[in-house]
């Protein structure tokens, strides 16, 4: 059986509930509150941010603040993408204390494409491949020290990735 981190697995939930119940009966509710803290630490999937239409709305929903452009955020994307279905895009930064990195494609139906949590021991550098509906700005957001920094680059798409 696989385990997941958003509590979607019914088995895991049962096990957690079972464990919490046993703990309540046996040892008072200290282990139970630990279990709750554990659940809260696993940030939930940001459903609303991924549903947002515009890049500004998605950033606001995800982080609750706005980003300032920074030359310390290095966004690597092709000038022209022949196939909008597979556009290799990567971000790295020289900023310290990075906690998350997100990718947005402004002209996609939903602007937010991917958001990565970067724990302290992980390098602030991510490469992935995204779909682009048409020629659009690609925005990289880096959250560092509680502030947001961004880099933007236009990628020209000759064939869209959304079956248009």
């Amino acid at each position, binding site marked *: 059986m696989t385990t997941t*981190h958003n509590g*979607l697995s019914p088995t895991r939930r049962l096990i957690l509930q079972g464990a919490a119940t046993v703990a309540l009966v046996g040892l008072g509710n200290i282990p139970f509150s630990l279990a709750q803290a554990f659940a809260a630490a696993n940030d939930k999937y940001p459903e609303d941010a991924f549903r947002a239409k515009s890049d500004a709305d998605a950033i606001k929903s995800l982080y609750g603040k706005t980003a300032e452009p920074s030359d310390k955020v290095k966004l690597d994307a092709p000038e022209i993408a022949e196939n909008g279905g597979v556009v290799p895009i990567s971000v790295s930064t020289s900023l310290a204390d990075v906690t998350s990195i997100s990718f947005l494609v402004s002209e996609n139906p*939903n602007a937010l494409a*991917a958001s990565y949590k970067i724990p302290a021991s992980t390098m602030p550098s991510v490469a992935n491949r995204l779909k682009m509906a048409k020629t659009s700005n690609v925005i990289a957001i880096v959250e560092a020290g509680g502030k947001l920094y961004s880099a933007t680059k236009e990628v020209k798409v000759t064939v869209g990735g959304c079956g248009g």
Partner: protein
Amino acid sequence: MASTIRVRATSSGDTTEVQALIQHPMDSGFVKDAKGETIPPHFIQELTFEYDGKSVFVADWGAAVSKDPYVKFSFKGGKKGDDLKISWVDNKGATDTTTAKIQ
């Protein structure tokens, strides 16, 4: 069943570089099939990499991540022969998990 997850984790002493390739349709919900019917959204929402009991990388993905997604990152630490655990869950609640040895 063969795993949907292919991982290469390479230690260079101080850091470990991880590349993962996952087989998944990543349907966005905006594409129509040959009959003109919309293919419903079906995409991975969360992808987690764990090393030594701790998350070293967590991806929240939307439908705009390409089919058969690829991701690359690095983390400090990680020794040759140690386990790296990778798991994903998609918007339909399907999951897969695999464990890779760091090389």
